[in-house]
């Protein structure tokens, strides 16, 4: 997985590329621990994300919990297959998916 970050003031866009799974999710989790601190407006761009398992969903849920306290978070460009996973897990109701 590749994590591409683009910060603009207190807005942060994180583009994820590849697979967000048990092996790669800890890397994103660790990154978010420090990078979310000054952020009010967080965007996950999932255009090039091919796969997400529950380990990846857990990291997104943690990020949403953090952002609920300090700003907002949106998910953009998720594929139909990934949207279906958000759907069956109820994530479609707790994340903002554009």
């Amino acid at each position: 997985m590749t994590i591409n970050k683009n910060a603009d003031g207190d807005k942060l866009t994180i583009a994820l590329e590849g697979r967000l799974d048990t092996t790669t999710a800890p890397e994103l989790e660790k990154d978010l621990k420090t990078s979310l601190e000054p952020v009010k407006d967080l965007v996950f761009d999932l255009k090039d994300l091919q796969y997400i398992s529950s380990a990846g969903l857990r990291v997104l849920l943690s990020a949403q919990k953090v952002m609920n306290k300090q700003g907002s978070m949106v998910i953009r460009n998720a594929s139909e297959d990934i949207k279906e996973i958000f759907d069956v897990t109820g994530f479609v109701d707790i994340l903002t998916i554009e």
Partner: protein
Amino acid sequence: MGIAEKIEIDAKIENLDQVLGFVDTFLEKCDCPMKVQMQLDIAVEEIFVNIAHYAYDSEIGQAEIRIEKEESGQIKVTFIDSGKPFDPLQKEDPDVTLSVDKRPIGGLGIFMVKKSMDDMQYVRSDGCNILMIWKKL
């Protein structure tokens, strides 16, 4: 006749990529659609990770994974471990209607498998956990 393959491997997270590689290679031979491959990958990941985390406590044990294409055209994956008895089908489903602050961080894995597979069965036999999943191609 269907085709079948199996892999025996230490049940540890570091081996996940190897397990998924094994599964994907098999599915590609079956001309599996991308979406079904993703669903099966998720199922295999969740189940293998469960075995790695819980079956043998802190010790490293073995897991055997068999994959086959049945004559009906369904893919069947069987997971066998000799760890402590654990039937994931008995686990209560998470409440997916809770708000973000009330949603616990874990507990989603097996639920995702149940939702995406056509059928799932568990048996405890000869000191082994045997978990089978089926998915139509």
